[in-house]
Protein backbone atom coordinates (compact mmCIF):
# COMPACT_ATOMS: atom_id res chain seq x y z
CA UNK A 1 0.00 0.00 0.00
CA UNK A 2 1.21 3.50 -0.81
CA UNK A 3 2.29 5.54 2.20
CA UNK A 4 1.15 9.16 1.81
CA UNK A 5 1.71 10.52 5.30
CA UNK A 6 4.23 9.84 8.04
CA UNK A 7 3.77 7.12 10.66
CA UNK A 8 3.87 9.83 13.32
CA UNK A 9 0.77 11.52 11.88
CA UNK A 10 -1.20 8.27 11.75
CA UNK A 11 -0.19 7.44 15.30
CA UNK A 12 -1.23 10.91 16.48
CA UNK A 13 -4.59 10.57 14.71
CA UNK A 14 -5.10 7.13 16.26
CA UNK A 15 -4.37 8.44 19.76
CA UNK A 16 -6.60 11.46 19.21
CA UNK A 17 -9.54 9.32 18.08
CA UNK A 18 -9.14 6.82 20.92
CA UNK A 19 -8.88 9.56 23.58
CA UNK A 20 -11.78 11.49 22.01
CA UNK A 21 -14.06 8.42 22.05
CA UNK A 22 -13.08 7.42 25.58
CA UNK A 23 -13.38 10.90 27.10
CA UNK A 24 -16.64 11.84 25.41
CA UNK A 25 -19.83 11.04 27.37
CA UNK A 26 -22.01 8.29 25.85
CA UNK A 27 -24.77 10.69 24.78
CA UNK A 28 -22.26 12.68 22.68
CA UNK A 29 -20.65 9.70 20.97
CA UNK A 30 -21.94 10.76 17.53
CA UNK A 31 -19.22 13.46 17.62
CA UNK A 32 -16.55 10.77 17.87
CA UNK A 33 -18.16 8.82 15.03
CA UNK A 34 -18.23 11.95 12.85
CA UNK A 35 -14.60 12.75 13.73
CA UNK A 36 -13.55 9.18 12.98
CA UNK A 37 -15.37 9.14 9.64
CA UNK A 38 -13.90 12.49 8.54
CA UNK A 39 -10.35 11.51 9.52
CA UNK A 40 -10.65 8.10 7.85
CA UNK A 41 -12.12 9.71 4.71
CA UNK A 42 -9.29 12.24 4.47
CA UNK A 43 -6.36 10.02 5.39
CA UNK A 44 -7.33 6.53 4.24
CA UNK A 45 -10.64 6.45 2.38
CA UNK A 46 -10.09 2.92 1.06
CA UNK A 47 -10.25 1.65 4.66
CA UNK A 48 -14.03 2.05 4.59
CA UNK A 49 -14.16 -1.14 2.52
CA UNK A 50 -12.73 -3.04 5.47
CA UNK A 51 -15.43 -1.87 7.85
CA UNK A 52 -17.62 -4.84 6.97
CA UNK A 53 -15.86 -7.40 9.16
CA UNK A 54 -18.52 -9.86 10.33
CA UNK A 55 -17.18 -10.32 13.87
CA UNK A 56 -17.66 -6.65 14.70
CA UNK A 57 -21.10 -6.35 13.13
CA UNK A 58 -22.39 -9.57 14.70
CA UNK A 59 -21.78 -8.02 18.11
CA UNK A 60 -23.48 -4.82 16.94
CA UNK A 61 -26.51 -6.83 15.81
CA UNK A 62 -26.55 -8.41 19.27
CA UNK A 63 -26.37 -4.99 20.97
CA UNK A 64 -29.00 -3.24 18.85
CA UNK A 65 -31.37 -5.95 17.71
CA UNK A 66 -31.23 -8.54 20.48
CA UNK A 67 -30.51 -6.71 23.74
CA UNK A 68 -33.47 -4.21 23.58
CA UNK A 69 -35.89 -7.11 23.05
CA UNK A 70 -34.59 -8.98 26.09
CA UNK A 71 -33.52 -6.39 28.67
CA UNK A 72 -35.18 -3.33 30.19
CA UNK A 73 -38.70 -2.02 30.41
CA UNK A 74 -40.61 -2.82 27.19
CA UNK A 75 -42.37 0.44 26.38
CA UNK A 76 -42.59 0.07 22.59
CA UNK A 77 -43.82 -2.61 20.20
CA UNK A 78 -41.86 -3.65 17.10
CA UNK A 79 -42.93 -6.57 14.84
CA UNK A 80 -45.29 -7.64 17.58
CA UNK A 81 -42.57 -7.77 20.24
CA UNK A 82 -41.99 -5.31 23.05
CA UNK A 83 -38.62 -3.61 23.15
CA UNK A 84 -36.81 -1.24 25.47
CA UNK A 85 -36.16 2.23 24.06
CA UNK A 86 -33.48 2.92 26.68
CA UNK A 87 -31.45 -0.15 25.71
CA UNK A 88 -31.90 0.63 22.00
CA UNK A 89 -30.43 4.10 22.55
CA UNK A 90 -27.65 2.63 24.70
CA UNK A 91 -26.92 0.09 21.94
CA UNK A 92 -26.70 2.83 19.31
CA UNK A 93 -24.38 4.89 21.53
CA UNK A 94 -22.17 1.85 22.08
CA UNK A 95 -22.18 1.18 18.32
CA UNK A 96 -21.02 4.75 17.63
CA UNK A 97 -18.21 4.54 20.17
CA UNK A 98 -17.18 1.06 19.01
CA UNK A 99 -17.22 2.15 15.37
CA UNK A 100 -15.07 5.23 16.00
CA UNK A 101 -12.52 3.19 17.96
CA UNK A 102 -12.62 0.51 15.26
CA UNK A 103 -11.85 3.19 12.64
CA UNK A 104 -8.92 4.42 14.74
CA UNK A 105 -7.55 0.88 15.07
CA UNK A 106 -7.95 0.35 11.31
CA UNK A 107 -6.10 3.57 10.58
CA UNK A 108 -3.22 2.32 12.73
CA UNK A 109 -3.33 -1.21 11.30
CA UNK A 110 -3.21 -0.16 7.69
CA UNK A 111 -0.72 2.69 7.88
CA UNK A 112 1.76 2.16 10.68
CA UNK A 113 4.34 -0.60 10.43
CA UNK A 114 5.20 -2.96 13.27
CA UNK A 115 8.85 -1.88 12.97
CA UNK A 116 7.82 1.69 13.73
CA UNK A 117 5.96 0.60 16.88
CA UNK A 118 8.99 -1.48 17.90
CA UNK A 119 11.08 1.67 17.38
CA UNK A 120 8.83 3.54 19.79
CA UNK A 121 9.49 0.93 22.47
CA UNK A 122 13.24 1.23 21.84
CA UNK A 123 13.04 5.02 22.18
CA UNK A 124 11.02 4.59 25.40
CA UNK A 125 14.04 2.96 27.02
CA UNK A 126 13.85 -0.70 25.95
CA UNK A 127 17.16 -0.39 24.08
CA UNK A 128 17.84 -4.13 24.22
CA UNK A 129 14.77 -4.70 22.08
CA UNK A 130 16.63 -3.67 18.92
CA UNK A 131 19.00 -6.60 19.49
CA UNK A 132 16.69 -9.04 21.28
CA UNK A 133 13.90 -8.89 18.70
CA UNK A 134 16.04 -9.89 15.68
CA UNK A 135 17.61 -12.69 17.76
CA UNK A 136 14.16 -13.93 18.79
CA UNK A 137 12.89 -13.77 15.20
CA UNK A 138 15.89 -15.70 13.88
CA UNK A 139 15.78 -18.45 16.47
CA UNK A 140 12.05 -19.15 16.07
CA UNK A 141 12.63 -22.10 13.68
CA UNK A 142 15.24 -23.54 16.07
CA UNK A 143 12.91 -23.17 19.05
CA UNK A 144 10.10 -24.80 17.07
CA UNK A 145 12.34 -27.74 16.15
CA UNK A 146 13.49 -28.06 19.77
CA UNK A 147 9.89 -28.02 20.96
CA UNK A 148 8.84 -30.71 18.48
CA UNK A 149 11.89 -32.86 19.33
CA UNK A 150 11.12 -32.58 23.06
CA UNK A 151 7.50 -33.56 22.40
CA UNK A 152 8.57 -36.56 20.30
CA UNK A 153 10.97 -37.78 23.00
CA UNK A 154 8.29 -37.20 25.62
CA UNK A 155 5.80 -39.34 23.67
CA UNK A 156 8.39 -42.10 23.17
CA UNK A 157 8.92 -42.17 26.93
CA UNK A 158 5.24 -42.79 27.55
CA UNK A 159 3.76 -39.28 27.41
CA UNK A 160 0.98 -38.64 29.88
CA UNK A 161 0.04 -42.29 30.44
CA UNK A 162 1.62 -42.43 33.91
CA UNK A 163 2.73 -39.81 36.49
CA UNK A 164 1.13 -36.99 34.53
CA UNK A 165 2.30 -34.06 36.68
CA UNK A 166 5.86 -35.35 36.99
CA UNK A 167 6.01 -35.95 33.25
CA UNK A 168 4.64 -32.47 32.55
CA UNK A 169 7.47 -31.07 34.67
CA UNK A 170 9.97 -33.20 32.73
CA UNK A 171 8.57 -31.95 29.43
CA UNK A 172 8.89 -28.32 30.50
CA UNK A 173 12.39 -29.01 31.81
CA UNK A 174 13.43 -30.54 28.47
CA UNK A 175 12.03 -27.56 26.55
CA UNK A 176 13.67 -25.04 28.89
CA UNK A 177 17.03 -26.83 28.80
CA UNK A 178 17.13 -26.92 24.99
CA UNK A 179 16.16 -23.23 24.96
CA UNK A 180 18.90 -22.35 27.46
CA UNK A 181 21.47 -24.30 25.42
CA UNK A 182 20.42 -22.39 22.31
CA UNK A 183 20.77 -19.16 24.29
CA UNK A 184 24.25 -20.16 25.50
CA UNK A 185 25.36 -20.91 21.92
CA UNK A 186 24.15 -17.49 20.78
CA UNK A 187 25.87 -15.85 23.74
CA UNK A 188 29.18 -17.60 22.92
CA UNK A 189 28.95 -16.44 19.30
CA UNK A 190 28.18 -12.84 20.34
CA UNK A 191 31.07 -12.83 22.83
CA UNK A 192 33.41 -14.25 20.22
CA UNK A 193 32.37 -11.56 17.75
CA UNK A 194 32.86 -8.84 20.37
CA UNK A 195 36.36 -10.10 21.13
CA UNK A 196 37.22 -10.27 17.44
CA UNK A 197 36.05 -6.67 16.95
CA UNK A 198 38.10 -5.49 19.95
CA UNK A 199 41.18 -7.41 18.74
CA UNK A 200 40.78 -5.95 15.24
CA UNK A 201 40.56 -2.43 16.65
CA UNK A 202 43.67 -2.97 18.72
CA UNK A 203 45.67 -4.28 15.78
CA UNK A 204 44.49 -1.31 13.68
CA UNK A 205 45.63 1.08 16.44
CA UNK A 206 49.03 -0.62 16.65
CA UNK A 207 49.43 -0.41 12.87
CA UNK A 208 48.47 3.30 12.95
CA UNK A 209 50.99 4.00 15.71
Amino acid sequence: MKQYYSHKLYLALFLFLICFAILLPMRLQYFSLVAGSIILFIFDASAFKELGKIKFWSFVVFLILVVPFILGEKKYILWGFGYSGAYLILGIQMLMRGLSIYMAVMLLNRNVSIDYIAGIFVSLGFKDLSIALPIALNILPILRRNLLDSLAVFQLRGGFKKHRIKNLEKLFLAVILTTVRTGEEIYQILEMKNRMVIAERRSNNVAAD
Partner: protein
Amino acid sequence: MHSTRNMVYIAVFGGLWGGSEIFLGSILYTLQIPMYGVLMAGIGVVIVLTGRLFAPVRGSILSMGIVAAFLKLFSIGNIALSPLAAILIEACLGEAVISLSGRSRVSFAAAGSLMVVYCLFHRFLSQVVFYGRGIVDVYSEFARMASGALGIGMEHVVLVILVFVLLYAVIGSLAGILAWRVGNRALQQMGMRAS
Protein backbone atom coordinates in the same frame (compact mmCIF):
# COMPACT_ATOMS: atom_id res chain seq x y z
CA MET B 1 21.31 -1.75 29.74
CA HIS B 2 21.38 -5.49 30.41
CA SER B 3 24.50 -7.63 30.05
CA THR B 4 24.91 -9.61 26.84
CA ARG B 5 24.00 -12.91 28.52
CA ASN B 6 20.83 -11.47 30.09
CA MET B 7 19.88 -9.89 26.78
CA VAL B 8 20.28 -13.22 25.00
CA TYR B 9 18.15 -14.95 27.63
CA ILE B 10 15.49 -12.25 27.27
CA ALA B 11 15.53 -12.88 23.52
CA VAL B 12 15.33 -16.68 23.72
CA PHE B 13 12.68 -16.83 26.47
CA GLY B 14 10.68 -14.04 24.85
CA GLY B 15 11.05 -15.96 21.60
CA LEU B 16 9.86 -19.16 23.27
CA TRP B 17 6.82 -17.38 24.71
CA GLY B 18 6.05 -15.71 21.38
CA GLY B 19 6.70 -18.95 19.52
CA SER B 20 4.35 -20.93 21.76
CA GLU B 21 1.70 -18.23 21.27
CA ILE B 22 2.15 -18.47 17.48
CA PHE B 23 2.44 -22.26 17.00
CA LEU B 24 0.42 -23.69 19.89
CA GLY B 25 -1.99 -20.76 20.21
CA SER B 26 -3.00 -20.93 16.56
CA ILE B 27 -3.50 -24.72 16.74
CA LEU B 28 -5.61 -24.50 19.91
CA TYR B 29 -7.59 -21.57 18.48
CA THR B 30 -8.30 -23.47 15.26
CA LEU B 31 -9.38 -26.58 17.19
CA GLN B 32 -11.60 -24.37 19.40
CA ILE B 33 -10.28 -26.04 22.55
CA PRO B 34 -12.34 -24.78 25.52
CA MET B 35 -10.45 -22.48 27.90
CA TYR B 36 -7.43 -22.42 25.58
CA GLY B 37 -6.70 -18.91 26.82
CA VAL B 38 -5.93 -20.13 30.33
CA LEU B 39 -3.77 -22.92 28.90
CA MET B 40 -1.75 -20.45 26.84
CA ALA B 41 -1.48 -18.06 29.78
CA GLY B 42 -0.27 -20.93 32.00
CA ILE B 43 2.39 -21.92 29.46
CA GLY B 44 3.41 -18.26 29.15
CA VAL B 45 3.75 -18.02 32.94
CA VAL B 46 6.02 -21.08 33.12
CA ILE B 47 8.24 -19.78 30.29
CA VAL B 48 8.53 -16.18 31.41
CA LEU B 49 9.02 -16.87 35.11
CA THR B 50 11.65 -19.50 34.34
CA GLY B 51 13.26 -16.90 32.09
CA ARG B 52 13.33 -14.51 35.06
CA LEU B 53 15.57 -16.98 36.91
CA PHE B 54 18.01 -17.01 34.00
CA ALA B 55 17.91 -13.24 33.44
CA PRO B 56 17.68 -12.05 37.05
CA VAL B 57 17.44 -8.32 36.37
CA ARG B 58 14.63 -5.86 36.93
CA GLY B 59 12.51 -5.41 33.81
CA SER B 60 13.44 -8.73 32.21
CA ILE B 61 9.86 -10.10 32.35
CA LEU B 62 8.55 -6.95 30.69
CA SER B 63 11.26 -7.16 28.02
CA MET B 64 10.38 -10.82 27.37
CA GLY B 65 6.74 -9.77 27.10
CA ILE B 66 7.61 -7.08 24.55
CA VAL B 67 9.61 -9.59 22.49
CA ALA B 68 6.76 -12.13 22.64
CA ALA B 69 4.14 -9.50 21.76
CA PHE B 70 6.09 -8.32 18.71
CA LEU B 71 6.65 -11.88 17.51
CA LYS B 72 2.90 -12.38 17.74
CA LEU B 73 2.34 -9.16 15.77
CA PHE B 74 4.83 -10.23 13.09
CA SER B 75 3.00 -13.55 12.77
CA ILE B 76 -0.38 -11.82 12.43
CA GLY B 77 1.07 -9.37 9.91
CA ASN B 78 -0.37 -6.14 11.28
CA ILE B 79 -0.86 -4.28 14.54
CA ALA B 80 -3.47 -6.29 16.43
CA LEU B 81 -3.95 -4.31 19.61
CA SER B 82 -5.77 -6.94 21.67
CA PRO B 83 -3.02 -9.62 21.78
CA LEU B 84 -0.37 -6.88 22.10
CA ALA B 85 -2.16 -5.41 25.11
CA ALA B 86 -2.88 -8.83 26.65
CA ILE B 87 0.74 -9.99 26.54
CA LEU B 88 2.12 -6.63 27.69
CA ILE B 89 -0.29 -6.31 30.62
CA GLU B 90 0.40 -9.91 31.69
CA ALA B 91 4.13 -9.18 31.55
CA CYS B 92 3.66 -5.93 33.52
CA LEU B 93 1.73 -7.76 36.25
CA GLY B 94 4.38 -10.49 36.50
CA GLU B 95 7.16 -7.91 36.55
CA ALA B 96 5.44 -5.84 39.24
CA VAL B 97 4.97 -8.81 41.59
CA ILE B 98 8.49 -10.20 41.17
CA SER B 99 10.12 -6.75 41.40
CA LEU B 100 8.21 -5.90 44.57
CA SER B 101 8.44 -9.20 46.40
CA GLY B 102 11.69 -10.71 45.07
CA ARG B 103 12.25 -14.18 43.73
CA SER B 104 10.74 -16.94 45.84
CA ARG B 105 8.31 -19.79 45.39
CA VAL B 106 5.51 -17.68 46.90
CA SER B 107 6.15 -14.65 44.70
CA PHE B 108 6.29 -16.89 41.61
CA ALA B 109 2.93 -18.41 42.59
CA ALA B 110 1.45 -14.93 43.17
CA ALA B 111 2.78 -13.60 39.87
CA GLY B 112 1.49 -16.66 38.02
CA SER B 113 -1.98 -16.42 39.53
CA LEU B 114 -2.24 -12.70 38.76
CA MET B 115 -1.11 -13.21 35.18
CA VAL B 116 -3.58 -16.05 34.54
CA VAL B 117 -6.49 -14.30 36.31
CA TYR B 118 -5.93 -11.27 34.10
CA CYS B 119 -6.57 -13.36 30.98
CA LEU B 120 -10.06 -14.11 32.36
CA PHE B 121 -10.87 -10.40 32.39
CA HIS B 122 -8.99 -9.30 29.28
CA ARG B 123 -11.84 -9.80 26.81
CA PHE B 124 -14.28 -8.05 29.12
CA LEU B 125 -11.91 -5.12 29.73
CA SER B 126 -11.23 -4.69 26.01
CA GLN B 127 -15.00 -4.60 25.42
CA VAL B 128 -15.32 -1.89 28.08
CA VAL B 129 -12.66 0.15 26.24
CA PHE B 130 -14.42 -0.45 22.91
CA TYR B 131 -18.06 0.04 23.89
CA GLY B 132 -17.86 2.03 27.10
CA ARG B 133 -19.53 1.48 30.46
CA GLY B 134 -22.80 0.61 28.74
CA ILE B 135 -21.51 -2.90 28.18
CA VAL B 136 -21.19 -3.32 31.96
CA ASP B 137 -24.90 -2.42 32.29
CA VAL B 138 -25.81 -4.95 29.60
CA TYR B 139 -23.82 -7.78 31.19
CA SER B 140 -24.98 -7.03 34.74
CA GLU B 141 -28.59 -6.88 33.54
CA PHE B 142 -28.12 -10.23 31.77
CA ALA B 143 -26.65 -11.68 34.96
CA ARG B 144 -29.64 -10.38 36.95
CA MET B 145 -32.04 -11.85 34.38
CA ALA B 146 -30.25 -15.21 34.36
CA SER B 147 -30.28 -15.36 38.16
CA GLY B 148 -34.03 -14.64 38.10
CA ALA B 149 -34.69 -17.28 35.43
CA LEU B 150 -32.70 -19.92 37.29
CA GLY B 151 -34.32 -18.97 40.59
CA ILE B 152 -31.04 -18.18 42.30
CA GLY B 153 -29.98 -14.97 43.96
CA MET B 154 -27.57 -12.46 42.45
CA GLU B 155 -25.06 -13.39 45.16
CA HIS B 156 -24.83 -16.86 43.58
CA VAL B 157 -23.91 -15.33 40.23
CA VAL B 158 -21.14 -13.40 41.97
CA LEU B 159 -20.14 -16.65 43.64
CA VAL B 160 -19.88 -18.40 40.26
CA ILE B 161 -17.61 -15.59 39.00
CA LEU B 162 -15.52 -15.86 42.17
CA VAL B 163 -15.19 -19.62 41.68
CA PHE B 164 -13.90 -18.99 38.16
CA VAL B 165 -11.43 -16.39 39.45
CA LEU B 166 -10.27 -18.83 42.11
CA LEU B 167 -9.89 -21.62 39.57
CA TYR B 168 -7.80 -19.40 37.31
CA ALA B 169 -5.76 -18.21 40.29
CA VAL B 170 -5.03 -21.80 41.32
CA ILE B 171 -3.99 -22.74 37.77
CA GLY B 172 -1.77 -19.64 37.64
CA SER B 173 -0.13 -20.32 40.99
CA LEU B 174 0.51 -23.95 39.98
CA ALA B 175 2.14 -22.66 36.79
CA GLY B 176 4.23 -20.28 38.92
CA ILE B 177 5.37 -23.08 41.23
CA LEU B 178 6.12 -25.26 38.20
CA ALA B 179 8.24 -22.41 36.81
CA TRP B 180 10.14 -22.16 40.10
CA ARG B 181 10.84 -25.91 40.19
CA VAL B 182 11.71 -26.25 36.50
CA GLY B 183 13.82 -23.09 36.52
CA ASN B 184 15.86 -24.13 39.54
CA ARG B 185 16.37 -27.66 38.20
CA ALA B 186 17.44 -26.25 34.84
CA LEU B 187 19.87 -23.88 36.58
CA GLN B 188 21.29 -26.86 38.52
CA GLN B 189 21.65 -28.99 35.41
CA MET B 190 23.35 -26.19 33.51
CA GLY B 191 25.74 -25.70 36.41
CA MET B 192 24.55 -22.15 36.98
CA ARG B 193 23.64 -20.51 40.25
CA ALA B 194 20.64 -18.26 40.80
CA SER B 195 22.18 -14.85 41.48
